[in-house]
């Protein structure tokens, strides 16, 4: 037989590859801590005259007790103890630049202005999460043993540490690396006694998604791949903290001058800049944000093997 019509010989009217109808997103952790209630928003520097917000921390509402005063004796003053924590706002940005040609031929719409603006918002939320996780190393209280997997005992030690410091631990938040979460799960599988009968323990044995990974002994777990390595060892440095331990400040942008194409959504400003000579359009997202530790005793670092 001869002159069959074969795919291998039809190079002039077939393609080496055709694009699928929809794109797939690369594997990445897309759960973020932006606007989580455990992180205190201390304010906005817009119009304040400084890029630093100082948060006063005062000894009120029961910190000082009344003292017994004998009949006929005067009482004396008790000063309010004050301290403060400062958060510095700085620019966080992402830039993309696309050519007109790619815009013309693109079939997925992911280079459209609104899609790129969404990408910028997601980029900010990821950056915010990375900024928060970078602070977890700063708590002076530490639980966990270097080089040893996270266990249920480390979890209890963390809660104990916070409770001894006087914190209200219900609705505290633990930010852990997936490695720490899975080591914790392994430890729970082997748990005995009253622990094994708890519903929250049974819930932790299920597979979890990035982000909110359930609750254990009243503390929320947030699973994030952005929890960093120690930098000096093989440990992942997560943390458990109550509301008031960490805070953030923003700088709300004003509409920019000199460009007609911009989007402001909350703290995010996206601007489009045209370079006609190169046939480029630049998309720049800016957020002015800072994070910092407010009260050290309200958090504990959890450093366990990576």
């Amino acid at each position, binding site marked *: 037989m001869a002159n069959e019509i074969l795919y291998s010989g039809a190079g002039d009217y077939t393609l080496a590859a055709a694009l699928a109808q929809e794109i797939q997103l690369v594997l990445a952790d897309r759960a973020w801590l932006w606007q989580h209630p455990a992180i205190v928003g201390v304010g906005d520097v817009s119009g304040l005259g400084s890029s630093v917000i100082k948060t006063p921390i005062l000894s009120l509402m029961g910190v000082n007790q009344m003292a017994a005063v004998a009949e006929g004796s005067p009482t004396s003053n008790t000063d309010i103890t004050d301290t403060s924590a400062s958060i510095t706002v700085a620019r966080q940005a992402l830039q993309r630049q696309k050519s007109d040609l790619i815009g013309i031929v693109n079939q997925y719409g992911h280079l459209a202005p609104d899609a790129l603006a969404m990408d910028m918002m997601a980029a900010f939320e990821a950056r915010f999460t990375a900024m928060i996780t970078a602070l977890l190393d700063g708590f002076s209280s530490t639980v966990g043993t270097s080089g040893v997997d996270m266990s249920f005992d480390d979890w209890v030690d963390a809660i104990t540490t916070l409770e001894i410091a006087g914190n209200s631990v219900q609705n505290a938040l633990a930010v852990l690396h997936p490695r720490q979460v899975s080591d914790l799960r392994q430890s729970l599988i082997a748990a005995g006694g009253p622990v094994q009968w708890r519903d929250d323990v049974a819930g932790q044995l299920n597979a979890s998604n990035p982000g909110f990974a359930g609750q254990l002994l009243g503390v929320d777990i947030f699973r994030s791949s952005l929890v960093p390595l120690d*930098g000096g060892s093989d440990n992942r440095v997560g943390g458990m903290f109550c509301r008031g331990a960490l805070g953030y400040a923003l700088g709300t942008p004003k509409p920019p001058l000199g460009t007609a194409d911009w989007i402001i959504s909350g703290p995010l400003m996206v601007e489009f800049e045209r370079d006609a000579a190169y046939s480029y359009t630049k998309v720049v997202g800016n957020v002015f944000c800072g994070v910092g530790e407010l009260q050290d005793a309200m958090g504990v670092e959890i450093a366990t093997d990576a």
Partner: protein
Amino acid sequence: MPVPQTATSQTLASEPVRPSVGGPRSALPVVEPFPGFLLYAQPLAWEVVEIDGEAVAVPILSRLPLSPGVGGVTSHGDASVAVAQKQARGCIVIRDEWVTAEETADGHPGYLRRLTGRNGEQHHTAWTRPELNAAGHVVWSHDADGYNRWRASLVGKHIPAPDARVLGDMADMVRTRLDRIAGRPTTPGNEAQLGAGKARLEVIGRVGKAAAKVATKAVKAGAA
């Protein structure tokens, strides 16, 4: 008679060039970006390690990321306020000069190293080394002994030795954990944890005894 040169008959010089067929989009490894940082010691953050069979208390060093917007670092990368905030809490910021070339695995002074990856730069300490495995992924090896020795060398020279109460609190936490594990059913896993906890308690105790000896010597020397 020779043909006169016209305006177009000029000799032009061209240079040799090799045709390029492109290449891999990026040969850089994939690493988790982390900014440059300062190491600092906190007064209550200590751990006990063994160096040459001897139990030693070493400071747990934290990182102050030099990232604008994080922990007081300004837009221009000025970390002076961030450092001042830490020092106000009693933290001791580790200076780069406190690490000599002999104390690091790669023979360079200073504790900060940088690896450039596809998603940015990852900064790490001199005792953590990146390697590429067979699959092309970055894996990290850690010179724990070198890191512990260097940290131990800081105690007494740049960082005061820990308060006896710090060791006491450390031992208390281990004892509480042992009590908790002892109440669980006897399984190989729980037995192993009990054994590890007891070993850790023993190591902490050895540090306490050594520290008490040093303190007694100092008191006697002061009295004399």
